[in-house]
């Protein structure tokens, strides 16, 4: 049986999702998407700079191969997030939305209460909601109950590249969740992504670590491979860590020397 990931009505073969911010060029973004074969990319909505006439990044994305997941970054409360979600839908992004409500600009940590409220509103309006959240297991259940299609607990603050600092809480979320768990934010190296998959996450979202690497395209491939490896390790049954030694050679028949 294929080990695909199902979120809402879509099937994903690649459990790495890619954020599209901070890439040095449109070409590097396009190549990263192509080489890593990601099937879900996040995008943001921003005001057009009338003078610059920037065309945005939509041309780097192939809607037949990648699901577009607009985020509500910039929103500081539920009302703003709902507005952004509707704008995204109006912009032709489809009805999937990554709910990101970050009122505090230094750590960009998500507001749990506004996120829950916005989830309820957006689910009622027919959106497929993937809320970005701190790794709070109870909040994860509340969001699941509110109709979220998946939950996205953070590994460490956005852009910090500090890795899976929230690993213990994420493990609880994975154990208790009935919906997919996508670890998002702070994964700084492929080993972080692999670790998230090894503990049972359904997918990971990575942006900064790839976008600001010296060679984003190479890094995108590295992350994609790491995610695949971590997932395979998880479904193959990782052995437990042990303090003592557990001989891998047979105990009997040791030659006397």
């Amino acid at each position, binding site marked *: 049986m294929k080990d695909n990931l199902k979120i809402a009505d879509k099937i994903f073969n690649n459990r790495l999702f890619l954020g*599209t911010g901070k890439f040095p060029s449109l070409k590097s973004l396009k190549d990263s998407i192509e080489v890593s074969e990601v099937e879900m990319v996040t995008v943001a909505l921003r005001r057009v700079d*009338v003078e610059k006439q920037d*065309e945005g990044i*939509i041309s780097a994305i192939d809607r037949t191969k990648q699901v577009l997941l607009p*985020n509500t*970054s910039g929103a500081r409360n539920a009302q703003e997030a709902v507005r952004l979600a509707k704008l995204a839908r109006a*912009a032709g*992004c489809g009805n999937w939305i990554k709910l990101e409500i970050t009122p505090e600009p230094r750590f960009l940590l998500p507001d749990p209460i506004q996120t829950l409220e916005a989830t309820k509103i957006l689910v009622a309006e027919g959106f497929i909601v993937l809320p970005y959240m701190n790794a709070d297991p109870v909040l994860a259940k509340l969001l699941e109950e509110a109709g979220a299609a998946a939950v996205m607990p953070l590994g460490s603050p*956005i852009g910090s590249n500090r890795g899976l600092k929230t690993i213990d809480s994420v493990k609880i979320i994975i154990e208790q969740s009935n919906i997919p768990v996508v670890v998002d934010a702070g994964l700084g190296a492929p080993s972080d992504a692999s670790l998230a998959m090894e503990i049972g996450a359904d997918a990971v979202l990575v942006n900064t670590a790839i976008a600001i690497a010296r060679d984003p395209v190479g890094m995108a491939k590295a992350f994609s491979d790491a995610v695949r490896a971590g997932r395979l390790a998880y479904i193959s049954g990782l052995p437990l860590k042990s303090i003592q030694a557990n001989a891998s050679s047979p105990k009997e028949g040791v030659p006397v020397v």
Partner: protein
Amino acid sequence: MKVFINDKEHSFDVNELEVSALLKELGIKPDGLVIELDNNVLTFNDFNTNLVKDGSRLELIRIFGGG
């Protein structure tokens, strides 16, 4: 007429203008663009049928990179 685009004032020599024409004037491609005109969300199909008047407030929003 004076209109506000992304909170900045812009002047035009006409009394009213179709949104699509306004975009052409400013050299902004309509692909992937979403516009809020006086708090109404307009999609691509609405650009020809909506008029910008003196005092109109527009938000021009596009898809950019983000995490």
